[in-house]
């Protein structure tokens, strides 16, 4: 295990922001820490880096305990040997690109020649060799980002920590850099934690995603699991777009009934919960098909429900319709042009109907 976090607690005064969370990373694993602002994801990252002192629990990096306040262990940030990329890049304005990248090496008293070689290697990885003598103020945002990346990996750290590193880049550059970060991390085979509030970023980059809310881990798993089988309403809402239909149980655990009496079949029975079994049905907007009310109903055991279009937003590649169906409003994407306020038929497979426990708060 590269990183093991166990029962990590962090509070500011009486305000507890991380509530005894635990997770671990394998060698070379890329884990996305996803959540809305204020969920404790950045605080968790900073506790691992040693920039914040945890109040409880343990953190170990490659088997070495670096934070265990109960036993008086609190290794300072500078002796944890991590590589970190900051949201604002934190490129020191008074040093050249080469000096910035070489800093982790010179601070370890490495010889001049070796520093130069390693800096050259790191700058080569991010394609910035020819800008080595520049000052940060002469670089674009994307270039500063690359310098930050080179600086994070140059010292061959035990783990890589990313604190929303792409949020200050424009959309196109962001997509390219995502792939680049992932390629670099695979090549170096270092465990990486990537903090972000952008679910697309987390899903596309991570081997595994940890979703956090208000200092708790809400769900943890591979991106596909998270999207297809969210454990609760929060994850369903936060990861991707989701619509919910009110449903009540029937005698058949695979059949549920909407308030207006339509039966919806699901592929899997509801997960056991402590919340008394109250459920909602989640449908992703791309999973449902829309057809005019006049069209023939679909077969293959698909759920078919009558609905009515109440809103339509044209988005280029598709149109997002809001459909009133079974007493709920659902969002459905469709390439077809349908009349506003017209009656439609909504159909989706039982495997695309996911039961989600209704949260109690």
């Amino acid at each position, binding site marked *: 295990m590269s990183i093991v976090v166990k029962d990590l607690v962090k509070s500011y005064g009486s305000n507890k922001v991380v509530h005894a969370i635990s997770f671990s990373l394998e060698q070379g694993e890329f884990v996305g820490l996803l959540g809305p602002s204020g969920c404790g994801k950045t605080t968790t990252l900073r506790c691992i880096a*040693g920039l914040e002192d945890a109040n409880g629990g343990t953190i170990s990096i490659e088997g070495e305990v670096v934070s265990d306040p109960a036993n008086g262990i609190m290794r*300072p940030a500078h002796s944890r040997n991590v590589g970190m990329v900051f949201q604002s890049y934190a490129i020191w*304005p*008074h040093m050249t690109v080469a000096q910035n990248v070489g*800093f982790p090496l010179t601070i370890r008293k490495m010889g001049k020649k070796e520093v130069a070689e390693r800096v050259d290697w790191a700058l080569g990885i991010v394609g910035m060799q020819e800008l080595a003598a520049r000052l*940060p103020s002469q670089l674009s945002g994307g270039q500063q980002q690359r310098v930050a990346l080179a600086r994070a990996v140059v*010292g061959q750290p035990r783990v890589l920590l990313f604190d929303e590193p792409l949020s200050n880049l424009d959309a196109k550059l962001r997509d390219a850099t995502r792939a680049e970060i992932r390629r670099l991390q695979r090549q170096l085979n270092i465990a990486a934690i990537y903090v972000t509030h952008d679910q697309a970023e987390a899903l596309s980059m991570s081997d595994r995603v940890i979703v956090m809310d208000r200092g708790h881990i809400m769900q943890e798993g591979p991106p596909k699991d998270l999207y297809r089988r969210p454990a609760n309403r929060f994850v369903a809402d936060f990861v991707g777009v989701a619509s919910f239909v009110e449903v009540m149980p029937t005698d058949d655990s695979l059949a549920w009934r909407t308030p207006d009496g339509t039966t919806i079949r699901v592929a899997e029975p509801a997960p056991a919960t402590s919340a008394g079994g109250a459920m909602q049905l989640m449908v992703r907007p791309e999973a449902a098909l829309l057809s005019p009310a006049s069209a023939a109903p679909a077969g293959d055991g698909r759920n078919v429900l009558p609905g009515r279009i*109440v809103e339509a937003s044209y988005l280029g590649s598709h149109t997002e319709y809001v459909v009133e169906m079974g007493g709920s409003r659902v969002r459905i994407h469709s390439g077809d042009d349908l009349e506003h306020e017209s009656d439609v038929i909504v159909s989706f497979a039982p495997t695309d109907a996911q039961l989600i426990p209704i949260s109690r708060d």
Partner: protein
Amino acid sequence: MTDAVVDSSRQAPEAMTRRPPPNGAGRDRILNVVYVITWLTVVALVLIPIAALVFGSLRTAGPGEGGEWTLKNFVALGSEGVVGTILTTLYIGGATAVISAVIGTAIALIVHRTDFRFPNLITALTGLAFYFPSFILAMAWIIIGSPGGILNAIVNGVLGIPFKFDVYSVPGIIFVMVLHQVPFVYLTMRGPIMGMDGVYEEAARAAGAPPLQVLRRVTLPLLGYSVASSGILTFIMCIEQFAIPALLGTPGRITVLATQLYLLCRFDPVDYGLAAAVGLALSAITGLAIWAQRSVITNARLTTVTGKAGRLAPIRLGRWKWPAYILCFGFSFLALIFPAIILIYTSLQRYFSSNPFDAAYTLRNYTFIIESPSTMSSFWNTLIVSGLGALVGVALGFLASYFTLRQRPTGYRWLDLLAAMPFGVPGIVIGLGLLWAYAYLPLPLYGTLAILVVAYVTRYLPYATETIGGQMVQIDKSLEEAAWVSGAGRLTTLRRVLLPIALPSVQGAYFLLFMAFFREISSAMLLYTSATSVISVSIWSFFEQANWGEASALSVIATLIIFIAMSLILWLSPTSRRS
């Protein structure tokens, strides 16, 4: 998901009809008149004394005495005496600036970046020291450290060590100037240190740098330009400084340019022409230094430290704890507490005695002050000049900032340049310039309080524009534009939008000027008459007559008033603290 934000079904009330915005053009014409008046006033304030000085430096006789054109005054600048004075001035200014920059930055770093336990106490004490008038500080240190002072009485008399402290020396002058200037460095470094984006240091820590390395390789280099800028400003203030070198230098015949100018005007052989040339030389040096400071700031833009001031992890002092305590409390003790105690002690004695058990204690110094009509009138004069003068200064500073930053009418660059210029002109030089000018101008200002107001406002105009303008540039242009779009004219926008938003800085500037005027001495030295004496001059006169008791008593009262005014500021307007 589908909550309506805009409820389009709501109808406008029937009674609401469209009404054209008020016609602001007429009132905006008033603004043009105000601009012209502001412009002319600033030009007159700044250019008249400078022009008079140039005129005076080219004349053979004193102000209003006729004479002929000559260059001999500039030739005399090259004489051995004057060159020696210039070198002494540069040496004292340079040494003080370097030492003050180091100590002030160290204190600011200790207070704001470490786990030092009494940051608020040291901030308060240093703030008080900043407002402790220089001439009072110098007097206290004369009582303490002169050949016949307290230190020598203890060291030689009591302990029997044959070592003589002599504050009447170049090191003595530098020592007292450092005590006076460190608070300035501290206050100017506070902002950059607290405003520094903590992420740079965090990145260094994450990159493996231990605390001292973070300080050496990231924090200090990032602060480098701020330290340099603060050091140069300190240098300027030192060579402009009049009271400390006059009090400490005169007995030991150590002259700097500012004191030489004064001696040339007040003691035989009087030579107003040479004094004017010396004043121009002094202004040239400060002008050069200001240019250097500006280019430092321009270079600093390359490596600007911007960003949010995050939660910064305090550096643990560890074994550096005691040196830090000694530096911070030692400084506060020498610059504020000890001098204050000595002044109170001296003010309570009939005749000065170094031995507190041998002294004859009395309150008669205080009763004398209250019963003396001339001292009381100097009190009232000071209050009038400070209270009204600061109002004039702030009004002018606000208008100058408004026009140069927001309106930019024709000629605004001149306004900007001229309003900043007096910073390079020492107070005593402005005094001499006005002395020359009003000997010829038909305005009967000489011998009135008004000429003091003119001198003070001119000298401190840059402080007012800096304080108010500093906040005004940060006000988003769209706030004004929104008002214009809503139908407000420029004048209404100024009154209803800009002034309320800028109010904290206007208040801050008023108090800043009030305090500066209250303790100003250098520009008053050549302009006061017995009817227009101010407190600073009265203290000075008592001291010159070797009347240490009354000088101390009056100093204690003046200092108390300053400190009370300062607490009022902090209490009244918490927002103005930053300025």
